[in-house]
């Protein structure tokens, strides 16, 4: 056997091994997702089944989610979550991008202190202050009725500026010379920011908006602490959580899966469409 042939054989063997490993791993990762999708179409109720594939398929689980609103009002929760997620997305994206721009491009006395403060605050357990936040919101009357939405929007977007690191890192890699050129041409800082830097930084803008939307969209614990017993202000996350409580699980388990599929669709769509921005946003794309 010639040397070239043996090298080819080794390469073929390696390829087979690698592809087999990848196939097994991919199966492990895809399996639960498939399982949820199949459960959402399953005709049999209850959470414990003896077969992997459902015996009969149905759309009833989805219909039940939107029609059976007496115990758990899913359409309402869906709207609540959507409103909260959209508004906090806009606000936090603005906070994050503007803070990152300032920290990257401008030099002011509070710059270093602000960055150190963000690092220190990031070390505290996130919800350690959650109970205190609840007391504060209660003191200003934001924990009753529809104002809970406002409270949640404030909670999700309020501290957003503290997670500037990724966007700042990105802005740091975009050439400063473009900014300077714009300012020599008579742009104010504000114009430079909105007309030059933001359009040039599409990956990070999209990445920021994406994460700012998904955060509130899937958050569970904050919503639970703030909403407490106000069932009509529940978000989807709390609704889904309740469906798995002992008194509901037998009737609602398959609808839980249907709800899970429904809230995953927007994320999946955003994610797949914007995957390349996600990767680029993490590493910095515009180079000089």
């Amino acid at each position, binding site marked *: 056997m010639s040397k070239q042939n043996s090298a080819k054989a080794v390469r073929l063997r390696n390829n087979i091994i690698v592809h087999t*490993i990848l196939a097994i791993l991919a199966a492990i990762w895809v399996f639960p997702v498939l399982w949820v999708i199949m459960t959402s179409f399953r005709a049999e109720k209850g959470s414990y089944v003896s077969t992997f594939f459902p015996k009969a398929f149905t759309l009833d689980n989805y219909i039940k989610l939107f029609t059976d609103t007496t115990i758990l009002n899913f359409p309402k929760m869906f709207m609540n979550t959507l409103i909260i997620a959209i508004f906090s997305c806009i606000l936090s994206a603005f906070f994050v991008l503007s803070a990152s721009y300032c920290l990257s491009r401008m030099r002011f006395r509070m710059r270093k202190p602000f960055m150190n403060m963000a690092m220190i605050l990031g070390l*505290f357990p996130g919800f350690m202050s959650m109970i205190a936040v609840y007391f504060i919101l209660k003191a200003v009357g934001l924990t009753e009725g529809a104002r809970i939405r406002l409270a949640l929007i404030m909670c999700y977007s309020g501290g957003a500026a503290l997670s500037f690191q990724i966007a700042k890192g990105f802005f740091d890699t975009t050439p400063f010379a473009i900014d300077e050129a714009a300012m020599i041409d008579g742009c104010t800082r504000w114009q430079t920011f909105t007309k030059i830097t933001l359009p040039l930084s599409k990956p990070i803008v999209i990445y920021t908006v994406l994460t700012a939307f998904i955060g509130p969209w*899937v958050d*569970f614990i904050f919503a639970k602490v703030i909403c407490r017993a106000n069932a009509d202000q529940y978000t989807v996350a709390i609704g889904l959580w309740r469906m798995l409580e002992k008194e509901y699980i037998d009737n609602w388990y398959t609808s839980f899966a249907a709800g899970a599929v429904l809230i995953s669709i927007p994320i999946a769509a955003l994610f797949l469409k914007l995957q390349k921005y996600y990767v680029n946003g993490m590493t910095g794309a515009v180079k000089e």
Partner: protein
Amino acid sequence: MTTISRRTRYVEGAHTCTVTEALRDGNTATKLSAVIMGYGNIVNGQIAKGLIFLATEIAYIFFMIRYGFTNLVNLVTLGSATQQEVWNEELQVYLYTQGDQSILMLLYGVATVLLTLVMFWIWRGTMKSAYTVELCKKHGKHVKSFADDIYDLFDENLYRTLMTPSMFFICALTILPLIFMILMAFTNYSKIDNHLVLFDWVGLQNFATLFDSGSVLGSTFWSVLGWTLVWAFFATFTNYFAGMVLAILINRKDTKAKGFWRFCFVISCAMPMFVSLLIMRTMLQPEGAVNVLLRTMGFLEAGESLPFFTDPTWARVTVIVINIWVGVPYTLLQLTGVLQNIPADLYEAADIDGATPVQQFFKITLPYMFYVTTPYLIATFTGNVNNFNVIYLLSGGDPVTDLGSTAGKTDLLVTWLYKLTIDKQYYNIGAVVGILTFIILAIGSLLVYRNSKSYKEEGGF
């Protein structure tokens, strides 16, 4: 022409005078501004700006007289009046008088102190502003009109415009609550001895309780801390290496259908984490899908089940393994880009020198990755110490083997903190746990961070 004037203005703005200078070298009007904020600005022609300063001062003084001083006094005493029944002659019923609520007193007190600090900061600003305008006038320079100031807020002072709203929310919803919780650690605000309405300062007593390994809380603390560190270590590094190996496998030159493989892993990101965790939990119950499947396939006897969340060791391994499932797709996404940035000629040179892929991994890939991703690793480690979701939604801290203790075998400091505050209402102990978590993380990550190359280079600018 406009460019030049703007340039010079930028340079002027760069010169800032200090408060001490203003108090020492300023003229009477400037010095008077220390008492009547904005006076110096008004005298020197900046009327609108001066009036805004003055209005702020009046609003603050009004607030302090009306509420502030009471709040400060209450912050020290934390109240003493209990709720009482009073017989009302006219209505012929018992009415309840409003008792003191220590929690609100503490909150308002902290808010007042914070407001005073902000006010002091504004006061410094007005002093500087007054002195600057005085200097401008003295040297015959252009005194900025109100319109100029507004213009500057969108130009060289843009950071003020953009950061102020953020800072307001950060103060109100992050810093204020944090100080509030930290102070709670020094009180007896707890269900123990019924101090939920009225409580008092107790100094370091709570810390002593927690460090006393003889007490139930003390021994729980040390075991929970130990497990938290073990968890954070494994959760961070299993994910990191698994994600890195996966990324390398997918990005190999000879791997076919790269996009497809990546898609398979990334698709699980689309499912919100709490959904996948809840599903995993239901699947791994004694009567859940996994055990049922194993039984029908004949691996387990009828009625037998694998103790995923009932045996301490099983539970601990289970949460770490499931965390790999949850976390690897994200790690894959994040590390792919970094891996692609490793200069290809390094590998080519290694190939020519006859290095095996394994050697290349340990001699090129790993050192480069550690160099670039140290901050990322630290952030992940701290994130895992504070990883509430995975533990709370997956095992809920179970199994609880020692009934006297408040924590289960998989409880992290954070989930224990949650149980202590929300379920048990031991707010003070919960706050102490939070503070200690912070201290451990702060010391650890500062040490690593300061020594990492990435910090030393970023610190340069």
